[in-house]
C-alpha cells in the first residue's frame, strides 16, 4: 500500500532531516513510528502524502508515485486520511461543515450525501450531538475525534496519524485511542507516529524506531518489545516505559 | 512616447527644487518628527498616568486628531495659529505667522497623536517588573520613567517610530494645499510656469519613491539587527 524507498530530505543545504529511509506498510497493516523528538518521524509521515517535499528516493502510494510531477496530488491526498497533532479543524466552520467541506469540494459529493456521511461518522466517534457546534466549543479529545471523522469521511484507503495524542490532556488520550483501536481492528491501513506504547502493543503489527533522520529499527511488534536490537531503541524504550 | 517632453527642465530647476523645496520638506519632517515624538510621549504618559481626568483629556485629543483628515487639520491650524499666537503674546490682533511655522505647528500637533499611540504601546510592552525594580532601588516615578522605562520603550519602538516618520515625510507634501513651496510645491510651481507637468510630477514621484524606499530599506535592516540582539 505504502512503499517508501531510499528517501532523503534536507532542510537547506546543511541539515538532513531524513537519511535513506526505506520501509513499507501493507494493506490492512498498522505500523507505529516512534523515536525521540527531532528524529524525523513527523517529517517522514508528511512525505507520504507529499505535504513535505523530499529530494531523493521515491514513495509509492497504492501504485502511484508520490514524487512524480505528473501525479495529481490533490486527488492522491484525498484518498489518504491524515490526523494532525493540533487537530487542525477549521475554526470558522461548524463540526458538520468541517466534515462536509472536502467531500463536496474535492470528491464532488452532493450536499445531502455529504451530510448523511458526516452524520454517520460523527455518530461513530460518539459526537452526534455536537454536529452544530464550532470546534472551539469542544474539548481537545472531542476535536481530535472530529478530525478522525473528517479524514474518514473521504473514504480513505489508508490513514496517517501524526502524534494524534501529544497535544491532549492526559484524561482525553484514551477516548481518542479507543477510536483508533477500533479503526485498526476493522482492518484500516494505518501509519501512526506516536509515543503511546500501549496502543502499539495492543494493535500494531510492526514498530519503526527512528533517530536522527534514520530508520534504526523496523521490527515486528513482538520482536521490538521483546528485544530491540539497537542501543538507541533500548534507551528510548526504557525512558518511555519507566514511568 | 516621451518624444515631446523636455526633461532638461528638471536639470534647470534642480537648485530650486532641492535647495529650497527639499530643504523645506526635510526640515519640516525632522522637526515635525522630533516635536511629535516629544509631545506624543507626554500624551502617552498622561494616558498611562492613572489620573482619570488627565488620561481622558489625552485620549480625547488623540481620538480627535486621528479622526480628522490631515488636509482639514492643515487648514484649521493655518487659520487658528495666528489667533493662538495673539493669545500667547497678548497682542491686540492676530499675529502674522509664516508658512513654515504654521505647518510645523500643524505637523507636531497632528503627528503627536500618532506617535503617542506608538509610545504607549512601547511603554506597555515593558514588563511591570521594570518600574517595580526601579522604585525598589529608590528611584522616583519621574526617574524610573526617564532612566528605565522610556529608553527601553523608545528602543523597542524605534523601527515603528521611523516608519511613522517616513509616512510623515510623505504627508508633508500636503502643505501643497497652502501653496507652500515644499519639494512638491516647488516642482509644481516650475511645472505650471513652464507648462511641464508631466516631467516635473514624474520627477517628484521618482524622488519621493527613492527616498522612501531607501529609508524603509534602512528601517528593515535596523529591525533585523534589533531582532538579533534580543
Amino acid at each position, binding site marked *: 500500500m505504502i512503499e517508501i524507498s531510499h528517501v532523503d530530505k534536507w532542510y537547506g543545504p546543511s541539515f538532513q532531516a531524513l537519511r535513506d529511509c526505506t520501509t513499507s506498510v501493507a494493506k490492512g497493516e498498522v505500523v507505529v513510528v516512534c523515536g525521540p523528538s527531532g528524529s524525523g518521524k513527523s517529517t517522514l509521515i508528511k512525505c507520504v502524502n507529499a505535504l513535505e517535499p523530499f529530494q531523493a528516493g521515491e514513495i509509492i502510494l497504492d501504485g502511484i508515485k508520490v514524487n512524480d510531477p505528473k501525479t495529481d496530488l490533490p486527488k492522491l491526498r484525498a484518498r489518504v486520511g491524515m490526523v494532525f497533532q493540533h487537530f*487542525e479543524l477549521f475554526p*470558522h466552520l461548524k463540526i458538520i461543515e468541517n466534515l462536509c467541506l472536502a467531500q463536496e469540494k*474535492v470528491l464532488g459529493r452532493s450536499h445531502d450525501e455529504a451530510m448523511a456521511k458526516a452524520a454517520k461518522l460523527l455518530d461513530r466517534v460518539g459526537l452526534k450531538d455536537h454536529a452544530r457546534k464550532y470546534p*472551539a466549543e469542544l474539548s481537545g479529545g472531542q476535536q481530535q475525534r472530529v478530525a478522525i471523522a473528517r479524514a474518514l469521511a473521504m473514504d480513505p484507503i489508508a490513514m496517517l496519524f501524526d502524534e494524534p495524542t501529544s497535544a491532549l490532556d492526559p484524561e482525553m488520550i484514551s477516548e481518542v485511542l479507543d477510536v483508533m483501536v477500533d479503526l485498526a481492528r476493522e482492518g484500516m491501513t494505518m501509519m501512526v507516529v506516536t509515543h503511546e506504547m500501549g496502543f502499539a502493543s495492543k494493535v500494531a503489527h510492526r514498530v519503526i524506531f527512528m533517530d536522527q533522520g534514520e530508520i534504526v529499527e523496523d521490527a515486528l511488534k513482538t520482536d521490538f518489545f521483546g528485544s530491540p536490537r539497537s542501543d538507541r531503541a533500548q534507551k528510548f524504550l526504557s525512558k518511555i516505559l519507566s514511568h | 512616447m516621451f518624444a515631446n517632453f523636455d526633461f532638461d527642465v528638471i536639470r534647470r530647476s534642480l537648485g530650486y527644487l532641492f535647495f529650497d523645496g527639499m530643504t523645506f520638506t526635510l526640515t519640516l519632517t525632522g522637526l515635525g518628527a522630533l516635536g511629535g515624538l516629544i509631545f506624543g510621549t507626554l500624551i502617552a504618559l498622561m494616558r498611562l498616568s492613572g489620573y482619570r481626568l488627565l488620561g481622558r483629556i489625552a485620549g480625547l485629543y488623540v481620538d480627535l486628531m486621528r479622526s480628522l483628515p490631515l*488636509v*482639514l487639520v492643515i487648514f484649521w491650524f493655518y487659520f487658528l495659529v495666528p489667533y493662538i499666537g495673539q493669545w500667547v503674546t497678548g497682542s491686540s490682533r492676530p499675529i502674522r505667522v509664516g508658512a513654515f511655522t504654521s505647518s510645523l505647528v500643524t505637523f507636531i500637533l497632528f503627528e503627536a497623536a500618532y506617535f503617542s499611540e506608538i509610545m504607549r504601546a512601547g511603554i506597555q510592552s515593558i514588563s511591570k517588573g521594570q518600574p517595580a525594580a526601579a522604585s525598589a532601588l529608590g528611584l522616583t516615578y519621574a526617574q524610573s520613567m526617564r532612566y528605565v522605562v522610556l529608553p527601553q520603550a523608545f528602543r523597542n519602538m524605534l523601527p515603528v517610530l521611523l516608519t511613522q516618520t517616513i509616512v510623515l515625510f510623505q504627508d508633508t507634501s500636503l502643505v501643497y494645499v497652502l501653496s507652500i513651496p515644499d519639494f512638491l510645491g516647488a516642482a509644481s510651481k516650475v511645472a505650471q510656469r513652464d507648462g511641464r507637468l508631466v516631467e516635473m510630477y514624474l520627477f517628484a514621484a521618482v524622488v519621493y519613491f527613492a527616498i522612501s524606499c531607501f529609508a524603509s530599506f534602512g528601517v528593515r535592516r535596523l529591525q533585523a539587527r534589533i531582532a538579533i540582539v534580543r
Partner: protein
Amino acid sequence: MNYHWNWSIFFEPAPNGTGTYLDMLLSGLLLTIETSLCAWIIALVFGAVVGVMRTLPSKAASRIGFAYVEFFRNMPLLVQLFIWFFVLPEIVPQDWGLWLKQMPHAPFYTAVIGIGLFMSARVAEQTRAGVNSLPRGQKMAATALGLTTAQTYRYVLLPMAFRIIMPPLTSEFLSTIKNTSVAITIGLIELTGEARAMQEFSFQVFEAFTGATVLYLLINIVVVVAMRFLERSIAIPGYITGK
C-alpha cells in the same frame, strides 16, 4: 479673541444657489462617502489578491506582490493622484489621452482609482499578516484533505484571516475616508473642499471647519459602531481572536 462668531451661518443661503451652507457641507459629506466606498472596494479586491500573492510558496508571485506594495506605499498619495490626473493622459496614445481629459467627473474617477490603489497596498499588508498569523497546520490539513491551493484559500485560510484582521481593516477604511480629502488638490469638492469653499464665501473660517470636523467625527463613530456589529455577527462561538 476678536473673532466674530456666527453659528447661524449654517442656515443662511450659500451664494452658489444650491441651498444653505449646511446643505453645502452635507453634499460634500455625501461625495466623501461615495468616493471612499468606491475606493474601498478597489482597495479590498486588489489588496486581497496582492496580499494572498505574498503568502504563496511561489517566489515569483511573492516578489510581484512585494514590488506592488512597495510601489504604492513609497509615494505620497498626493503625488500619485497628480500622476493619474495630470501625467497619465499625456503619456498614453493621443486619442486615449483626449478621452481621459474629456471624461466627465474626472476628479471623482481619479480619486476612486488613485486612493483605491494606494490603500490596496495597505490592505495587502494586512491580508498577508492575517494569513501568516494562522497556524501552519491549517494549510496542511486542507492540503491533506485534497483541497487545491485556490480552494484552501477560498474555504479555509481567507475566512479566518479576514475575521482576524477585521480591526485593522476598520482603521484602514477610516484612513480611506480621511484620504478622500487629498483629492481636493485635483478638484474634488468633497467635505473638506466644501468647508474650504464655505470659508471663502462666508469668511466664517472656524464655523466652517467646525462643521466639517463634527461631520468627520460622526462618520468615524458610525463606521466604528457598524464594524463592531459586523465583527460580532461574524465572530465564531468559543473562538477568542488575538489569542
